[in-house]
């Protein structure tokens, strides 16, 4: 296990703001993604997808499609042996068997010489559907008598929740109630709620609603599959976890894991949307059927129609507070729409909402609801932006009702280390108060009254400022790493960790610092599932915390082995040795020593008695490190059109220890802009038949450079006791606070409190007009 480094050894790399090593490759277009691969004989795949949200499949006729020249295979469910009738997860439903449960569900698959031919073949497949009533809105779907989504007896899938964060389940139960579409429930409570509300002076009740949003990675899902003569499957995949993909594909297709090699290609963005298998199983099936490599790249339309977006969340929140500011009571329903298959991170929302601010009496009821829509997956801090949108807005409303400063009100009630969470777990050390204090010191916050005083003057619109605090409890997952000393005195670090966030450079910095080498002598290799040590998902803000720890320990192990070999050779005591400038020397006697290269060479020499230096670490983890961020927006609203212009935006984040500040800033800025998108422009819109009304990037609006100001970043460091060099995960916290910060800013500017996202110009303009 990692400990905070206590050493006089000079830190060689940790804390330096260094560009990623793969920068030159990326700016010259040399980096390879799945769609860039084109092995000989490769075929193109297309899927035929259901036009109905809920229907029975009466008949599929593929004869005309098969007859089209250039078509090499047409597959339906009947052609896939071992397909489970009751698919336990969405990925198991490779092709629909006799029922479709969301618009866009794959019904048939084609492999052809050209994509255009594959598309034409899909046109020629005849499917007879019997359309059934669909459950489209989660509030309706929760009711008794709603059209049922799951096959009776399908288990709730809590694997996503467990993979993402270790927050102990608040008694998450899988038993369906009489309302058949409630697939998971949770309830936590403490104290006497009725009494507490009765004693409250101010009771505020609001419903917060956040639509489904797409993770929005620029690279659509893609997979390339090829079988060899021995029945070994190789999968090149755009994935956040090669070992996870391997396990899923093995289970889905009934293969041994050793039969599959997953080669993680550069991932063009994942953000939680590329954790679960999606394209890999069907691509593998087509490759088997044709005996040729098959490549399947989703179109953007398919991604939006039938990807695995973030869930819609509806939070009914009622809070009670006394006139003197004492928090009394919190009552909440958190309803998470999971789409057609269970898999929401239900407990995080339920626990967070009553854990961040100290309510002595609370009851939170969580529901996962199935609907006839594509099933959901994680998106950077899943359910946290939604949950903090609700609780932070509510804290602000209470502060305003009481006439107290909203920062002081938050600070007064914010939890700290040792306080109990809603599920009884104790909060670990965290920087929530520090980031809040730091952002409140920012001139934009201090001068907010001067800004709002400009409303309506000199051609200005309505001016306001808002802030919010939010965070995440990063997950844990066992992992492994090796550190090898090469015959030239350089190091090679091997992990299986997909580098989606630039973590490789940070891992190199950690290895360099721990071993005692300069950074340019360290190479990080990401191995495929055949060669790399087992590792977990690149998700849950845990790569540096876990893999960084493994690399740290493996580097220390390699250092120890190196010093042992040198000590024997130099007849010195290990405690007296140092590694400096590529040599092992006796402290204080720098001109005598042995080079690392000589030790490395000896470990690979014919007849040598010196073993090769191979540092190994394969840890599991128990201690989490919560990570918090605070965000502030200074805005101006056009009162007639409702357009919001963000003049300034600030992110303050506790990184524990910024291993690579350049990388950390990038995560903060990217996450903040995703957060602003959720707040202002994004949302998947479905019609009453469960059809997506905005399946293109024209109408699914991600923010452009012209919509944004520079995102100012301030890194705070509250060391995580168990993090490598004190580091915490940084990927997820920045996506959390902006919806609340912007709703607070809109309220400040206009007097209007919006509780439904996005805060679109229409919502703002019509609310202003109705004031």
């Amino acid at each position, binding site marked *: 296990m990692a400990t905070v480094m206590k050493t006089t050894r000079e830190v060689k790399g940790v804390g330096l703001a260094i560009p990623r090593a793969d920068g030159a490759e990326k700016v010259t277009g040399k980096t390879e993604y799945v769609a860039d691969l084109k092995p000989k004989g490769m075929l193109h795949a297309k899927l035929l997808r259901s036009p109905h949200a809920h229907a029975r499949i009466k008949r599929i006729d593929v004869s005309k499609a098969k007859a089209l020249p250039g078509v090499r295979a047409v597959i339906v469910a009947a052609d896939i042996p071992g397909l489970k009738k009751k698919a336990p997860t969405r990925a198991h439903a490779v092709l629909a068997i006799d029922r479709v449960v969301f618009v866009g569900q794959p019904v048939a698959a084609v492999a052809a010489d050209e994509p255009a031919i594959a598309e034409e073949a899909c046109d020629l497949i005849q499917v007879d559907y019997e359309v059934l009533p669909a459950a489209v809105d989660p509030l309706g779907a929760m009711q008794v008598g709603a059209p049922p989504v799951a096959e009776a007896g399908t288990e709730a899938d809590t694997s996503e929740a467990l993979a993402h964060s270790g927050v102990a389940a608040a008694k998450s139960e899988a038993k369906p109630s009489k309302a058949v579409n409630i697939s998971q429930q949770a309830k936590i409570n403490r104290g006497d709620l009725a009494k507490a509300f009765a004693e409250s002076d101010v009771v505020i009740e609001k419903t917060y609603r956040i639509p489904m949003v797409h993770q929005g990675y620029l690279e659509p899902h893609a997979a390339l599959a090829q079988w060899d003569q021995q029945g070994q499957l190789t999968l090149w995949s755009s994935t956040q976890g090669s070992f996870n993909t391997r396990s899923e594909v093995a289970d889905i297709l009934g293969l041994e894991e050793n039969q599959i090699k997953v080669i993680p290609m550069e991932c063009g963005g994942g953000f939680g949307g590329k954790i679960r298998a999606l394209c890999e199983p069907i691509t593998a099936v087509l490759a088997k059927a044709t005996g040729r490599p098959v490549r399947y790249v989703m179109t953007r339309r398919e991604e939006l129609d039938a990807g695995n977006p973030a869930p819609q969340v509806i939070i009914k929140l009622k809070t009670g507070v006394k006139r003197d500011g004492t928090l009394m009571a919190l009552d909440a329903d958190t309803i998470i729409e999971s789409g057609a298959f269970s898999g929401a991170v239900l407990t995080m929302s339920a626990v967070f909402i009553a854990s961040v601010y100290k309510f002595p009496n609370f009851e939170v009821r969580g529901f996962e609801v199935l609907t006839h829509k594509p099933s959901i997956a994680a998106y950077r801090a899943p359910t946290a932006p939604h949950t903090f949108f609700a609780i932070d807005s509510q804290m602000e409303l209470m502060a305003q009702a009481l006439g107290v400063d909203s920062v002081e009100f938050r600070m007064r009630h914010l939890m700290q280390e040792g306080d109990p969470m809603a599920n009884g777990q104790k909060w670990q050390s965290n920087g929530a108060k520090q980031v809040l204090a730091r952002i409140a010191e920012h001139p934009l916050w201090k001068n907010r009254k001067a800004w709002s005083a400009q409303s309506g003057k000199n051609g200005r619109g309505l001016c306001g400022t808002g802030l919010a605090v939010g965070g995440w409890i990063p997950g844990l997952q066992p992992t492994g790493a090796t550190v090898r000393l090469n015959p030239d005195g350089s190091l090679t670090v091997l992990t299986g960790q997909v580098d989606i966030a630039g973590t490789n450079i940070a891992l190199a910095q950690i290895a360099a610092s721990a071993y005692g080498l300069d950074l340019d002598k360290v190479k990080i290799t990401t191995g495929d599932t055949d060669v790399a040590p087992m590792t977990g998902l690149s998700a849950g803000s845990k790569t540096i915390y876990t893999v960084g720890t493994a690399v740290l320990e493996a580097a220390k192990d390699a250092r120890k082995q190196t010093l042992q070999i040198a000590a024997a050779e130099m007849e010195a005591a290990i405690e007296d040795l140092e590694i400096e400038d590529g040599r092992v020397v006796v402290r204080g006697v720098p001109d005598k020593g042995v080079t690392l290269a000589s030790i490395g060479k000896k470990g690979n020499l014919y007849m040598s008695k010196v073993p090769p230096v191979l540092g190994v670490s394969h840890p599991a983890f128990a201690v989490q490190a919560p990570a918090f961020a605070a965000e502030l927006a200074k805005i101006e609203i056009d009162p007639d059109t409702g357009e919001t212009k963000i003049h300034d935006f600030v992110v303050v984040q506790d990184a524990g220890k910024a291993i690579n500040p350049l990388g950390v800033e990038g995560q903060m800025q990217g*996450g903040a802009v995703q957060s602003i998108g959720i707040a202002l422009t994004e949302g998947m819109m479905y019609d009453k038949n469960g059809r997506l009304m905005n399946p293109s990037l024209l109408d699914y609006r991600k923010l452009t450079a012209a919509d944004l100001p*520079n995102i100012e970043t301030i890194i705070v460091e509250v060391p995580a006791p168990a993090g490598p060099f004190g580091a915490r995960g940084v990927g997820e916290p920045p996506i959390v606070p902006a919806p609340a910060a912007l709703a607070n800013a809109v309220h400040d500017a206009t007097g209007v409190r919006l509780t439904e996202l996005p805060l679109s110009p229409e919502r703002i303009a019509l609310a202003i007009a109705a004031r």
Partner: protein
Amino acid sequence: MAKTVLSCTVNGEAVEILVQPYDTLLDILREELRLTGPKEGCGTGDCGACTIHLDGKPVTSCLVLGMQARGRSVTTIEGLAKTGALHPLQDAFVRHGVPQCGFCIPGALMAAASVLAEHPKPTEEEIRYGIAGNLCRCTGYTKMIAAIAEAAQAPATGRA
């Protein structure tokens, strides 16, 4: 379907290849010429990941049929700088830590090169509008803007 000959110039070199009439320029660059720098992020001109220069102007190549490039000149990210050297924009992107997943980068650089060709000393607003057609989900654009502004200071800029 019969293929036809497409003759054009790509990254300064004359090219003659057989193409299908319904192939887009993006498809042909990537699949036939194996210039995989330009990416398909959406196929409908809404993300900019496929941005190349057509007769010196930035366009979304997913919306251009290959045959529409006949007799014209195409420049992709692979042709932005001479082999071995980085264009000042590419160098600035690397040093500022711009590329994260990297998928938007080739298109963004081609758009940025056009911004500098049109505005040798661009304001922040000119840069932002100049790359507004390039969606990026990883970076939030801030470092990209800073890198472009810095590259504008470098001597040999203005070369598209």
